[in-house]
């Protein structure tokens, strides 16, 4: 298989899946008596058609990139970590807590991010240990830990980090610790830089370092990996740590970079869901750090555009979720490859003649 082919394939696949998703979405709207075309026109104009819209798309993409990376790295190592949600909560709260002390403007954001990464990492530690030493399947432990995080966050928001005058939220992140907005009048912050940076690092790690190689080996064939000197436990712990740190950062960029509140709401209404959406994004991005970048922008863009779609086309924004679902569903199908072949986009392998 030509490298070009390998590089091109997932991209085209995702595009086709995107079209299928939009098609089904149109069908649903049409079935309920909405006219899909104006809806989609607004959707895309407003999400990718203007600087303002694009800024919205990128702002939404920021946390998704990080949670998607958290999942993808686990997947590459053969771990199905769905705990990004909880780790993200912990990261966000740590970032908020980092605003209790006063720190110089330059240093404060760094300290906050570091603390958030640490918090996410620590939150992933117990499931990691359970997996490494008790063989407890990460699916079960991370689901449980998502709920524990959910309630712990509720407690911290309401009792510990609570805003003394506004009990519905935590104290706001200190001005010195906020991630500056890149575009006034939008909610796009420097967080996108953090996210993209992490994606690039993740790519370098997995494909250009020895430990990344070993992680992928452990994921593909643990038995053989052990034989090649890869310590399974260390791998599990390491991967969980990285995933936790990334998810923690996702929470942090949201709390530190999303105007206007720069805080965590009780009910976690400004955080809930990024962890799970991250899984969808990771899949659209084919669990590849560089694939995740466009996937997240697309995904976040749809959500941004949906706001105006409901406003101008009067189509409930929920339909966009359905569209995203169908896209992911379509991506599950390897048959898409066949389509590509017919388009002659993939070079064929001939071993004989």
């Amino acid at each position, binding site marked *: 298989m030509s490298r070009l082919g390998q590089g091109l394939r997932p991209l085209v696949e995702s595009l086709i899946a995107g079209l299928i998703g939009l098609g089904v979405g149109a069908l649903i709207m049409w079935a309920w008596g909405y006219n899909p075309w104006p809806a989609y026109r607004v959707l895309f104009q407003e999400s990718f058609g203007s600087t303002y819209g694009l800024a919205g798309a990128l702002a939404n993409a920021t946390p998704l990139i990080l949670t998607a990376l958290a999942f993808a790295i686990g997947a590459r190592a053969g771990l*199905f970590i769905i705990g990004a949600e909880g780790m993200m909560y912990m990261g966000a709260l740590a970032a908020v807590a980092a605003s209790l002390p006063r720190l110089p403007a330059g240093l404060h954001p760094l300290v906050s991010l570091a603390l958030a990464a640490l918090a996410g990492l620590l939150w992933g530690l117990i499931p990691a240990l359970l997996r490494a030493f008790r063989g407890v399947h990460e*699916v079960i432990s991370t689901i449980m830990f998502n709920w524990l995080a959910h309630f712990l966050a509720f407690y911290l928001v309401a009792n510990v980090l609570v805003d003394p005058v506004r009990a519905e939220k935590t104290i706001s992140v200190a001005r010195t610790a906020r991630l500056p907005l890149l575009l006034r009048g939008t909610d796009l912050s420097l967080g996108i830089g953090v996210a993209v940076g992490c994606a690039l690092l993740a790519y370098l790690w997995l494909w250009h370092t020895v430990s990344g190689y070993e992680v992928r080996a452990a994921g593909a064939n643990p038995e053989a990996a052990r034989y090649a000197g890869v310590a399974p436990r260390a791998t599990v712990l390491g991967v969980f740590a990285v995933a936790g740190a990334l998810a923690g950062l996702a929470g942090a960029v949201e709390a530190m970079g999303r105007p206007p509140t720069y805080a965590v709401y009780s009910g976690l209404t400004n955080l809930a869901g990024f962890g799970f959406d991250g899984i969808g994004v990771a899949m659209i991005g084919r669990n590849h750090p560089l694939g995740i970048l466009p996937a997240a922008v697309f995904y976040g863009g749809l959500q941004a555009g949906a706001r105006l779609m409901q406003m101008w086309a009067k189509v409930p924004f*929920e339909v966009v*979720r359905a569209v995203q679902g169908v896209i*992911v*569903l379509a991506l*599950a*199908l*390897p048959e898409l490859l066949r389509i590509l072949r017919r388009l002659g986009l993939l070079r064929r392998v001939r071993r004989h003649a």
Partner: protein
Amino acid sequence: MTWAYFWSLLSISLHAMVPITLAAVGEVIGESAGLFNIGLEGILLLSAFTGTLGAKAGGPLAGLLAGVATGLAVGFVFGLICAFGKGNQLIAGVGLNLFALGFVAFGLQVLGSPGFHKVPDGSQLPPIRTPVGAFSPLIPLALALPFFVHWLLGRTRVGLRLKAVGENPEAADVAGIPVEWVQLLSTMAGAALAGLAGAYMSVSWLGSVTKEISAGRGFIALATVVFSGLRPLLALAGGLLFGFFESLATWIQSLPGVKEVVPWQFIAMTPYVATLLVVAGVIGRVRFPKALGVPYRRE
């Protein structure tokens, strides 16, 4: 606590156990045949929705059937994609959940009262009245089903073939077992049970559907499956354990004077902690079918 308290706690627990157990046992069937469907949450949501519509149209049984039908339909699509299309099961499942979330919310938006749909009292599944309280007829079903599935998987030729497909589809294929069909049917059966669970929530348990009615129960069911290591009876145990602690948590919270000592958030954690402790302490490593989640290709 008096007996009355006990019975009502029991009743709450049993009602909370049903959806988790049904969905989990269904998933056990599907996974035994090698299909790993993390779309349970989505199925619960969809069938809770269609269940409501069915009940409004034709009464409680129609509602339950609508739920089952929805499960079958979703299972069919999932099986088509994953068994015949050799699709990636995790991706398909995630897609399913996203789709359901959007579709149901959308559906509730455009049908009369957005965000919430009530099942008229007349159309709700009438409970079985006993001196110690009213119980949903699906409770005995949920209690019995795991034993049936246990027998089916462990003692019958059907079970043998099903597990063969999950363990080594090539072997099954070579032995003349139609791998794809077995997988399709088992995942449909599993999804149908999840569909029943969803319909139960709206038609029998809560009497209405909201856009978040499943509230993570699909994932809890998933955890229960992992916890059970694909043993139906353990799945039931898991369902009971979880249902009980979930209800107990709500109970303790409402006891006067407790919240003042322990914040309610920590009480609410008990079911999850309990599950973890059991898994970590008692169950530990579980073995899954070799070909679980791996699409089978002849070529």
